[in-house]
């Protein structure tokens, strides 16, 4: 087990190196001089030269990369060009809404996806099963921003139950906080729930064919007990992986969801930074998200070994 974790940690090095190279290259694929692009049309030649020097753009590319990457590993992505503060600080100030939104979305994903999958599997080939599966494909087909707009139209514009956007920090007013987060969290969670439902369904169907289920039924256990006590426990093991991996998609989806619901999180900051050409900020946010994603996937894989004793990662 220790050897497995160590090996996985070592494998992170090339992946993070490539992530770093890709993020670093983002600035350098900009057509023209990044410094000139960042400063806009009205910049003088002198200002551009200054920024070039500050960004180290005159150095050879490999030197620039080593310099940038060694700072990035210490979570130092330089200063945000527009906000006039370190990127890390800017991101930290915007982290709370994004992290909470992602957690609530994960909650919605699970409470929608798991029951839907289990019910579809138990009522296999019934109308209910078909309807749930069509809904799950539809869930994947509805872009989060469109679902968000439709929900805003219904629940904020027409019914006026919730605000159409904005964010209230949880420490200021918990009730208002949840009221402002329920639509965005549902929107984001629903988009991921379809895939989870389909996976839970197929993994339930697999498990229900197994011998121990037949045994449990044969010894006269109640159907409900067989499902919750035996089938579900095993069927949910692969679901853990999907939920873990979906965290990356949720973090990415948060960018779009935050824009729809005008939530001042990291994602919205990234989107605002596009027009401002705030490259250090975009680099920092992308790098950080990728790192979180990679680490979460690693944790999921390790967790998987703990919950499923049949799996032993050998060499």
């Amino acid at each position, binding site marked *: 087990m220790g050897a497995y974790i160590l090996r996985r940690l070592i494998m992170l090095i*090339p*992946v*993070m*190196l*490539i*992530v770093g*190279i*890709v*993020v670093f290259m*983002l*600035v350098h*694929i*900009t*057509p023209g001089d990044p410094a000139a692009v960042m400063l806009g049309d009205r910049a003088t030649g002198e200002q551009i030269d200054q920024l070039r020097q500050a960004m180290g753009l005159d150095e050879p590319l490999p030197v620039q990369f080593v310099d940038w990457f060694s700072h990035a590993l210490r979570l130092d992505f330089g200063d945000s060009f527009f906000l006039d503060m370190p990127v890390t600080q800017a991101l930290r100030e915007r982290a709370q809404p994004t992290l909470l939104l992602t957690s609530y979305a994960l909650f919605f994903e699970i409470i929608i996806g798991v029951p839907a999958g289990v019910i579809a599997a138990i009522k296999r080939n019934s109308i209910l099963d078909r309807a749930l599966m069509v809904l799950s*494909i*539809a869930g*994947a*087909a*509805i*872009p*989060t*921003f*469109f679902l968000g*707009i*439709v929900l*805003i*139209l219904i629940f904020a*514009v027409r019914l006026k139950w919730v605000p*159409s956007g904005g964010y209230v920090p949880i420490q200021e007013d918990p009730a208002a906080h949840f009221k402002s987060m329920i639509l965005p969290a549902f929107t984001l969670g629903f988009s991921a729930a379809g895939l989870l439902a389909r996976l839970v369904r*197929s993994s339930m*169907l*697999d498990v229900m*064919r197994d011998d121990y289920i037949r045994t449990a039924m044969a010894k006269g256990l109640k159907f409900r007990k067989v499902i919750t006590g035996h089938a579900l426990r095993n069927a949910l093991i692969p679901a853990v992986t999907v939920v873990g991996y979906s965290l*990356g*998609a949720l*973090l*990415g*989806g948060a*960018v*779009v969801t935050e*824009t*729809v619901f005008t939530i001042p999180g990291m994602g919205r900051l*990234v*989107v605002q*930074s*596009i*027009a401002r*050409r705030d*490259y250090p900020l*975009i*680099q920092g*946010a*992308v790098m950080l*998200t*990728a790192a979180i*994603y*990679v680490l979460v996937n690693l944790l999921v894989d390790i967790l998987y070994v703990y919950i499923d004793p049949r799996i032993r990662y050998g060499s």
Partner: protein
Amino acid sequence: MVVETPIDSTQSIEEMGQTISALDRRPERRWLTSLKGNRFALAAAIVIVILVVMAVLAPWIAPKDPKFIDPSLRLLSPGAGHRFGTDEFGRDVLSRVIYGARVSLLIGAGVTLFSAIIGAVLGLVSGYYARFDTPIMRLMDGMMAFPSILLAIAIMASLGPSTRNVFIALTVVYVPTIARLVRGSTLVLKQQPFVESARSIGMRDHSILAKYVFPNALSPLIVQCTFVLAFAIISEASLSFLGAGVPPDEPSWGNMLRDGQKLIQRAWWMAIFPGIFLVITVLAFNILGDGLRDALDPRARER
């Protein structure tokens, strides 16, 4: 999972005969007939054909010029003159929706084609030649460590908003998925006796890859491509919605949703109609992809 054997002992003699004659037919024919049996997938295919026709014939079908601005017709609700209403510049929403199909389908198809070609080459090389496997696959792993929309946004931020750059950004995003899939198929096919024998009679590697490996890796690739197409259409719309996609005056569904959201309180039709078309398009490709997967891989049908 139950593996379906071609001939089941519980089958009647007639059924067995049918199974055998089904096996006799060329594989392409078999999945076509099987797709015909799937009403959902057939309906999806018809919807896609209609959308393609709509996109190709847009200049003849659209009632108005999608870029024609007439301030006197601002924000008209759907009615006789403008079935889907007008936007804040007095442009006809129906015409813009019809032209929007062009942007979505063109970008979706283009991105799928390019990422399939690049991904297939990378996957074949990586799966067939052990010495290229690690570098290529580590690169792909690195690319897949980004949430796809975030990587696309970052590339668009660097390249600047234009239709061509949306192509580039989304192709970069979807190549790794396809490369991984094709590599997987290649690794399996490489071990097959027919590849072994082709090699033993002295066939060159590129001919083996072209004649034996690639054709056999094609069906999962086609299935994956329908899903990539659907994802690419959503991603293009998302990028445009965020203001990092095709230029704002182009009639794309994502752009229309962006404009529509700002005026959602006053003009719901600006966002709802392009959104519905977007959903129908993506849904059609997803259902077609599911149908193709069932048809090409009968073992998956049980699930």
